[in-house]
Structure formats: structure tokens, C-alpha cells
């Protein structure tokens, strides 16, 4: 009974067990609510005395705020109050987004509304609070704000050059962070190599475009001294700490409630000045203040990402063995590093992840992170991965081309062997267990390479140019405190779950991880049903309330299943054991001779039903007098989980993309896409497959369509859904998803993350496919998004 459970002992591998839900495609519980319009998004929350905020945003990339005249705005019917940066600074402290373990990192203090200067177009400058959003917008229209435009620093390439506009003079220059990882002797390896090839890659600045925009209602109750925040966020506990710290409150005075969230993709795990401003205004007004970003505001104020220029070189020997990678990454992050994760992590990830799937000895990679007067960038789905994968896989394909080697063959010769683990990569990433070769073998079972190559040759004769591209990748999941905590950020890497049984035998789980549409609550329900032994319908899941759920980090960096899921499994098993202790007393049987199957206490050996859980619940809660006096009967258990052996649980996979390039129009048609990934234990194959597919779509979006385009003055030109092109179903290919399962040994569940794998590899696979199509025409593209204009230019058609 007190033995440590093993996957076998809890039936993890027993598909025949009636309540063996782990590993099954169980529909998620919240789908009917979502499709019937019965979800509760932040905007649906109605509070008495609610007022609405609207912001005047900077029309300039960089400007001094010369004068703010709110007199006319205050005359607008319905307007309650106008707030400036100085007003809010009285109750709200600025924040500086640096992490101690990112050596030398610097950034400037950021206020909810700036005091003197606006530093990007779209930065909130003045807030108007009114009885309705429409009245607040009327008030904004009546504001008189004089800006004195200043020269803007837009181009990251010149950010550190003499004569650059230093965006925050007190920092001395625009350098936020730089890091070089070096291993072996890159120069010697390059000098001795059979072939050295190089290329410059560009990944386009893009953003997350959540269906539900950022939304917040902050309500300060003067009588209780409490701030209650309804927030569309991925990390309620983190935001609790942020609001408390910035508004000079104790954590315990702040409650963050996060009901349904319509998509996040990393967009909603950051501290936004307009949202902190809402909390500060609520603190001052003593009444609830709501702000919902409109789409226009979302484009100019949600974090952007992936604005990188990367120069890369690869060295190979005559057999195609990779000898060295030499990478130089440059990224512009906007005028502030974003709190509290910082905007240096994406570049840092590029350093950590380049070359990741391969076994090679010599490595040098530098990232340089600079300020610019554009929307701040920060972590977005698959942080840094698609960049590192595009560079790595682009270079590997170039090497194969230089050698006249098949792209599959060069990968087979260089992927880290499946029996080589544990393995430490040149930049120091420790891999517990990956399956690159098994994944490649599985992919080749799925992709009909011979048929595709024959079709490709046949189509070429007709002037139709098709291409097949591959991309191996690694993905960082289940982060430990090594990601943020050691740098001083109050970001929890551990997570907790409380599981309880109620009198009717139903089970409730409260978890610190959160749901934004990916199905976190669905897998928690499966895991708990499995762990306790009840039908999945008998489990209710509660997430997203700092006052009722165990403290946790929320859902980001692919930690929901791996961390939150393990905490839920451990607490479910603990509850089951507790139930069996009570059952043993009632049935006069040894607890370990009993089991729970589909809500029934049964004899472990025979499966004979002994007692329904509802009966046990009835006795415990209403007739406790009939139980032995000293019998422990707490039908509630809490467990927390944190990874301890490895800083991250790396996953791996490989993708393939099959495309047709119209060489006259530059249009790319996505014909088919494949992904094999290894996220360890697959808790719910349906959800994992959909996560992979959704991730692929988001990766393809960044590679083909999505682009935040600025003009020379720093005006963002892509501020509607007509100009910022998201991938849509009509253009998406059929996607085939396969799995290899290498469970992590750090947890009983063995799950790693799966939400970012698709995004990590898709752009690289697509780039390689396009270039495979263009190769006979002597053209190549390495600058994302791969627009018709860029492809036509590569073909010298324009």
C-alpha cells in the first residue's frame, strides 16, 4: 500500500482497464460550454458599479509628451476620470524586466503609463474611465495631447552603431543582453572542413492573435482592502504577485480569477502596462474597471515576437558529418524588456537550441538583444524554437546540397543516437532521453518519399515545381526553476493539485495550471479519473482562481500536462489510497486487497464489487459516528510536483512538408504535412494531435503569412485582420501526426509537453520544401515570411 506507485501498478499501460483514461482520446469536458456560448470570458463578467477604460495610445514611435489637456474629455457625458502616467505613479511602482542569471542584462523602468516619453506607436499614454466603453472612447477622442516627435530607432542593425538613438539614455546604449556559448574549436573545425556553407536567415516579426483579446476587470474593495482581478491570463498566481508588488499590496490582498480564456499562445503570460493601469485605476477609484483590447490595440500592444536576423555557418566533412555550427543572432525587442520573463529569453533560446538534434563537437552561437522603437517582443508559442530550427535545418540542407547528399541521409548520419542518453549538447542542454532516429524511421513510414520524388520529377517536366522538406527539432518543456526562478522572477516552476471526493462519490480537482482552449482541464479530468478510479464524467475541474487552487505557475512552456498533470495524478493516487483505507475499515478488508474501478470499491483480485463510492461518501460525511474513532477520513489530498533531475524535459520530433511553388506568381501551395513527435506519455492522443496540428498551423502562419510590418517612421501598417494575414483553413494542408513515446522518468505520468512541437518545426520544414522546389531554378529563400514578392525576387522574376 505504501509502495511508490509505478506506471504499471496504476494501470497506465492497461488499456483494458475500465477507467484507464490515460492514453485515450477522451472528449474534453468544456467543449459543449464553449460551443454553446456558455463560457465565461472576462468580458462576460458583470459587476456592480463597473466602469470602462479606453486608452489614448501614442501615434508616434518615439515622442515627448509635451502636454495633456483633459478638460474637454472630462466634459464628455459619461466620463468619470482621466488618468495620466503621473496620476498612476502615485499608487503604482514601475518595473524593470531583467533576470539575474542573464549576465549583464539591462532594461529601463516601465510605468503603467509613461511619464515623459512614448517609445512605441501604440503605447498607452492616457486613460479615460467612463460609464461605458463607448463613452470612454468619446472621452479619448476629446483629449488634447501634444506630442513632440523624436527620432526613432527602428532598425535593429543600427541599434548599437554610433549615432543610434539611445532609447533610454540612462542605460547608456541600446544593448539589452548578449551571450555567446562556445564549445570546442569552431575556427579550427571550419578551417579543416570539407565544406563550409553559410546563409543569413530572417524570421519575421509576428504576434499571437488570440481570438479573445486581452481582457481585465480590476476591482479594489476599500472596505476589505482587497483587489480582485478577473483576468484573461495564463498565470493567475504570477499576476497576483505582480499586482500586489506594483500596487504596494500583500499577495494575500490580491485575488486573480481567470475563468474561460479564448487562446493565449504566450501572449497572455506577460505584464502589460494597460492592464496594470487598470488595476491602478481601480485602486484609486475603489470601483471595478474593465478594459478589453480591441483588435487594433491588440496588434499594437500585444507582445510581438521572432524579430531576428541570424547569420549561420555549418562545417561538414566529406561523409556529411557535421563538424561545427557558427551562429550570430540579432534581435530587436522594442523599447522595454517585458516583465517578468524578460525579452532576452528568445535570443537565449536560440543560443541554447541551435544544432539541438545533432551530435557535433564545435559550437559557437551569439545572441545580441537590442532596443528599438517598436512594439515590445517577448515569449510567444515555441519561444526561439522555430528560429533555431530554421537556422539549423536550413544550414543542414545547404550542407547536404553542397555534398550532393540526400537530406534524409545527412540527418540520419548526424542525429544524436537513440542510445546516447543522457546527453549534453554543446551549449549545455541536458537531454534525458530523445528518439530522433525512431522518429525519423516513423516519419519515413508515413511519408511516401519514393512516390513523392517520382511525382516531383514527373511534374518538373510539365513546369510544375514541387518540393519536399524535412526538419528535425527539439523542444524544451516542463521547465524547472532554472528557466526563471533562479533569475529572481517570482514565477513558479512547481504546481499543485487538490483532489477531493464529495458525498456522492464525485471528485473535484483544483489545479494551479490553467486552461486557454488547449484542453488542460480535459487531461486533468482524465488523469484524476484514472488515478482515483472513477468514470471521467464524475470529475469536475477547477482552475484559474488564486484563492481556491493550489499555488502554481499556470500554463506556459508546455508544462500543463507534465507538471500540473503529475501533481494531479499524485494527489489522485493519494486520494484513492485514503479512500481504500476507509473502505478497508468499513468492509473489514485489508486496504491493499481492494481497488476502485469505475466508482466502485472492488476486490483487487476478483474485481467483485463491494461498495459504490457514493455509499462510502454517505457514511464518511453523514454517519461518521459508525466509523472507528481513530480512522483517518480526510477524503481530500493535495500534492505538488516539481522536476528535480533535469532543468527541462526536452522532447523531439521531425516534420516534413510537401509543397508546390507557382514560379510565375510566387505563391506556395501547401500539399501535405507530416509530424512525428515524442512528448513522452501521450495522455490524450486526440488533444495531442490537435495541439500538434494547431502548432503546425501557427508555424506555417509565421513562415508564409504573418508579419508585423512597419514603415520608416515606425508606424505599424498591419493593424487589421485584412492586413495581418493569419493562416486560414482553406490554405492549410492535410496534416499527419505520429508519435514515439519516451516517457520522462522524472514523473510517474511520464508526460512532457506537446503544445509547441508543431510550431517549432513547421517553418523550417516549409522553408526546406520551398527551396527543394526552387533548387533546379537556382533560387533560394531564407527570409520569412516567404511571400510571393520574395519568391519572385529569388527567381529574378521581379
Amino acid at each position, binding site marked *: 500500500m505504501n509502495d511508490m506507485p509505478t506506471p504499471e501498478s496504476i494501470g497506465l499501460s492497461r488499456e483494458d482497464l475500465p477507467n484507464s483514461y490515460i492514453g485515450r482520446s477522451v472528449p474534453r469536458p468544456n467543449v459543449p460550454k464553449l460551443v454553446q456560448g456558455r463560457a465565461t470570458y472576462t468580458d462576460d463578467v458583470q459587476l456592480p458599479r463597473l466602469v470602462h477604460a*479606453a*486608452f*489614448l*495610445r*501614442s*501615434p508616434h514611435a518615439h515622442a515627448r509628451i509635451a502636454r495633456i489637456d483633459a478638460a474637454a474629455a472630462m466634459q464628455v457625458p459619461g466620463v468619470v476620470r482621466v488618468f495620466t502616467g503621473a496620476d498612476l505613479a502615485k499608487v503604482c511602482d514601475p518595473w524593470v524586466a531583467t533576470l539575474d542569471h542573464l549576465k549583464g542584462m539591462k532594461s529601463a523602468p516601465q510605468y503603467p503609463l509613461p511619464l515623459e516619453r512614448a517609445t512605441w*506607436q*501604440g503605447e498607452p*499614454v*492616457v486613460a479615460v474611465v467612463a460609464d*461605458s*466603453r*463607448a463613452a470612454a*472612447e*468619446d472621452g*479619448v*477622442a476629446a*483629449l488634447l*495631447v501634444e506630442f513632440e516627435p523624436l527620432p526613432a530607432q527602428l532598425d535593429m542593425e543600427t541599434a548599437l552603431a554610433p549615432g543610434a538613438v539611445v532609447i533610454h539614455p540612462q542605460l547608456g546604449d541600446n544593448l539589452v543582453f548578449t551571450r555567446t556559448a562556445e564549445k570546442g574549436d569552431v575556427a579550427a573545425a571550419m578551417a579543416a572542413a570539407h565544406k563550409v556553407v553559410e546563409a543569413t536567415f530572417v524570421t519575421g516579426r509576428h504576434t499571437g492573435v488570440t481570438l479573445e483579446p486581452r481582457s481585465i476587470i480590476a476591482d479594489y474593495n476599500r472596505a476589505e482592502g482587497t483587489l480582485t482581478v478577473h483576468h484573461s491570463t495564463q498565470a493567475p498566481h504570477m499576476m497576483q504577485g505582480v499586482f500586489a508588488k506594483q500596487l504596494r499590496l500583500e499577495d494575500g490582498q490580491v485575488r486573480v480569477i481567470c475563468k474561460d480564456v479564448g487562446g493565449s499562445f504566450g501572449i497572455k503570460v506577460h505584464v502589460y502596462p494597460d492592464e496594470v493601469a487598470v488595476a491602478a485605476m481601480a485602486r484609486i477609484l475603489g470601483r471595478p474597471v474593465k478594459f478589453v483590447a*480591441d*483588435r*487594433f*490595440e491588440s496588434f*499594437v500592444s500585444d507582445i510581438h515576437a521572432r524579430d531576428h536576423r541570424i547569420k549561420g555557418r555549418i562545417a561538414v566533412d566529406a561523409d556529411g558529418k557535421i563538424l561545427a555550427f557558427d551562429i550570430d543572432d540579432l534581435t530587436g525587442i522594442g523599447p522595454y524588456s517585458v516583465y517578468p520573463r524578460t525579452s532576452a529569453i528568445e535570443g537565449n533560446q536560440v543560443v541554447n537550441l541551435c544544432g539541438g538534434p545533432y551530435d557535433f563537437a564545435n559550437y559557437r552561437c551569439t545572441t545580441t538583444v537590442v532596443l528599438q522603437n517598436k512594439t515590445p517582443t517577448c515569449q510567444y508559442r515555441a519561444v526561439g524554437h522555430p528560429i533555431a530550427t530554421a537556422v539549423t535545418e536550413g544550414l543542414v540542407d545547404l550542407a547536404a546540397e553542397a555534398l550532393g547528399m540526400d537530406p534524409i541521409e545527412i540527418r540520419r548520419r548526424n542525429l544524436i543516437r537513440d542510445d546516447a542518453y543522457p546527453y549534453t549538447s554543446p551549449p549545455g542542454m541536458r537531454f534525458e532521453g530523445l528518439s530522433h532516429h525512431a522518429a525519423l524511421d516513423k516519419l519515413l513510414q508515413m511519408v511516401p518519399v519514393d512516390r513523392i520524388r517520382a511525382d516531383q520529377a514527373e511534374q518538373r517536366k510539365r513546369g510544375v515545381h514541387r518540393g519536399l522538406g524535412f526538419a528535425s527539432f527539439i523542444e524544451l518543456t516542463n521547465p524547472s526553476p532554472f528557466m526563471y526562478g533562479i533569475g529572481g522572477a517570482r514565477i513558479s516552476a512547481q504546481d499543485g493539485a487538490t483532489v477531493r471526493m464529495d458525498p456522492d462519490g464525485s471528485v473535484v480537482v483544483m489545479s494551479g495550471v490553467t486552461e486557454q482552449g488547449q484542453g488542460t482541464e480535459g487531461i486533468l479530468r482524465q488523469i484524476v479519473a484514472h488515478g482515483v478510479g472513477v468514470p471521467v464524467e464524475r470529475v469536475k475541474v477547477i482552475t484559474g482562481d488564486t484563492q481556491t487552487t493550489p499555488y502554481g505557475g499556470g500554463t506556459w512552456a508546455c508544462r500543463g500536462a507534465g507538471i500540473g498533470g503529475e501533481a494531479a495524478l499524485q494527489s489522485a493516487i493519494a486520494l484513492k489510497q485514503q479512500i481504500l483505507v476507509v473502505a478497508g475499515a468499513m468492509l473489514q478488508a485489508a486496504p491493499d486487497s481492494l481497488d476502485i474501478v469505475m466508482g466502485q470499491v472492488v476486490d483487487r483480485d476478483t474485481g467483485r464489487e463491494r461498495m459504490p463510492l457514493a455509499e462510502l461518501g454517505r457514511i464518511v460525511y453523514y454517519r461518521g459516528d459508525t466509523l472507528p474513532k481513530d480512522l483517518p477520513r480526510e477524503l481530500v489530498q493535495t500534492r505538488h510536483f516539481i522536476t528535480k533531475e533535469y532543468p527541462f524535459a526536452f522532447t523531439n520530433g521531425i516534420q516534413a512538408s510537401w509543397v508546390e511553388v507557382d514560379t*510565375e*506568381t*510566387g*505563391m506556395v501551395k501547401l500539399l501535405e504535412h507530416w509530424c512525428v513527435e515524442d512528448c513522452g506519455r501521450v495522455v490524450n492522443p486526440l488533444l495531442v494531435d490537435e495541439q500538434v496540428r494547431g502548432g503546425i498551423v501557427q508555424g506555417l502562419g509565421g513562415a508564409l*503569412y504573418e508579419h508585423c*510590418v512597419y514603415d520608416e517612421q515606425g*508606424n505599424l*501598417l*498591419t*493593424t*487589421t*485582420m*485584412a*492586413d495581418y*494575414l493569419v*493562416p*486560414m483553413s*482553406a*490554405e492549410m494542408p492535410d496534416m499527419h501526426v505520429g508519435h514515439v513515446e519516451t516517457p520522462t522518468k522524472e514523473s510517474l505520468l511520464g508526460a512532457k509537453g506537446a503544445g509547441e512541437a508543431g510550431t517549432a518545426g513547421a517553418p523550417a520544414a516549409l522553408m526546406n520544401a520551398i527551396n527543394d522546389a526552387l533548387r533546379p531554378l537556382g533560387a533560394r529563400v531564407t527570409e520569412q515570411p516567404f*511571400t*510571393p*514578392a520574395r519568391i*519572385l525576387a529569388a527567381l529574378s*522574376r*521581379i
Partner: protein
Amino acid sequence: MINKQVVARGLLGLARGMSSMKWPAFGYARARSLQDVWRLQSEHGDGARLIAGGQTLLATLAFRLSEPTVLIDITQVPELRGVSVEAGTLRIGALTRHAELGRDELIARHAPLLREAVPYIAHPAIRNRGTIGGSLAYADPAAELPACVVALGATLVLASAAGERRVRAEDFFTGLLETALRGGELITAVEVPIATAATRSTIAEVARRSGDYAMAGLAVHLSLGSNGQVAAPRLVYFGVGNGPVLAKAAGAALAGRRLGAESIAAVQAALAGDLDPPSDLHGPPEMKRHLARVLTGRALSRFLPATEVAA
């Protein structure tokens, strides 16, 4: 529907420091007849705006780029409805929705170009609401229908309290988002000469995603004699200028010639004199010129006998 011009003005909105999602306050009145429209217009003056499908106007209201005092809803005006054929002319009421264009039997028979254009117009939800009159009156340079009506040699019927007048489609589009419509005037119908056995028409465009505004597009209408000789070619390009561009040099290069690889190449070469496209988010003018040439080849090749296409 939102487009470049709206966005450009959207940036002006941002330049005023505004970002908004709520309409300004305005009144609403439903007209039951054209007489009602004239009466409401005279009551409300310049602050009145007509609303039919609303697919452009509502977006501009949300952006607060347009602040009318009253919207006059013309969707219940019977004079603006219906599709009919009279005396060799197909009459399409201005309220005919894009989706209706795509399924109307008379249009399929007498102006198949319009039916062919419908799938290119935005997305089904927009096609269910948007009207041909609205699209023509808005005159977006990248929209399909303005180019189609010019290619078809259509006539627009305009009406105001002062009476009715007719304007040839090619004279109707006068500049970027500008038309021959006068204050107080609206489009009541589009009159299209009906197709004959010799008529050939087609539409081709390149858009980033299905339903997007075209990077470049072409609506073409011509007569093809039994000997393969082209008469009265009208090649109208969209997404490459301030409005639909009737390519006169290209048309001249084709008129009277036998359709084939040689004449198509001549048309492509002549285009240089017809098109002066602006750059946009998708690419430079050279790209639009290039795409126009490619589309010209593809569109005209559709009229070739199958044997010649294979060659």
C-alpha cells in the same frame, strides 16, 4: 469589408491617438421606397449615410472613421431589388447580394463573368450581406465587381431626388475610392448587355489567401469569331491602380487578331503602357506588373482550343 484605404485611414485614427471598437452614436431610419430615401436625405442633410449590406460602412464606423448622424437603411427599397432581362439588357438591382449573383439563373446565362467572380469576393458571410451596389459605390481598387462591370461594358443607373441618369461603368470610377456619384445620388441598378454565342469572359486573380483582396486581378470580356479572331476585347485589371484599369493598349494589341501565343505575348508587352501600379504591403510595382502579365496569359489561354493550350 476592410481594405487598404480603410487601414490607411485607420492609421490616421491612430495618429489622432484613437483606437476604438464602439460605434459613435447615430440615428437610424429605414426607407421603404426611393421617395422615402429622398425625404430622409433632405431631412438629415450631409450627416446621413446610406447603409445596405454594411460590409464596409460598419467597419469604418467601428474605427470611427465615419461619424454619420443617421444611417438610412435602403435594404427595404423595392426599386433597388431584382434581376431581370429586358430588350437585350440584363438589369441587376443594386441590392443584389454577392451570394445572389452567384446563384441567379439569369446572371449565369447572360453575364457568367459575374457568377465566376463571386467565389473570389471575400468570404461567405460577407457575400451573404454585401451588395453589388455597395461594392460599386465604394469602388475599392482591389475589388472584383468594379472590374467586372467595366469589362462587361455595363451601364450604371443612378438616381437622386432630381431624377435618374445613366453612366457607363468605365466612366463611373473616377479615382481612388471616387466615383461619378453626386451628393444625394445612389446606384439603383446595373445594366449589362447580354452575352452572345461569341462572348468569352473570365476572371483571374492572385490573392495571398482565398478571399483576400487581390494582389493583382483581371476581368476580361471579348468576342471570339469562329476563325479565332478577337473582337471588342476589354481587359480590366484590379488591385493594380486607383480603380479598375481598362487596359486600352493591351486591348488594341489584341483586337482583330487571332488569339494565340503570339497575340497573347503582344498583349502582355502592351500592358506596360496601361499599368502604373502603386506598391502595397504585398510587394513593389514590378511585382504587380509581373503578376498582371502572368494573369493575362493565364486568362486568355482559357479561351484557346484545348490543343493549343497543350502546345
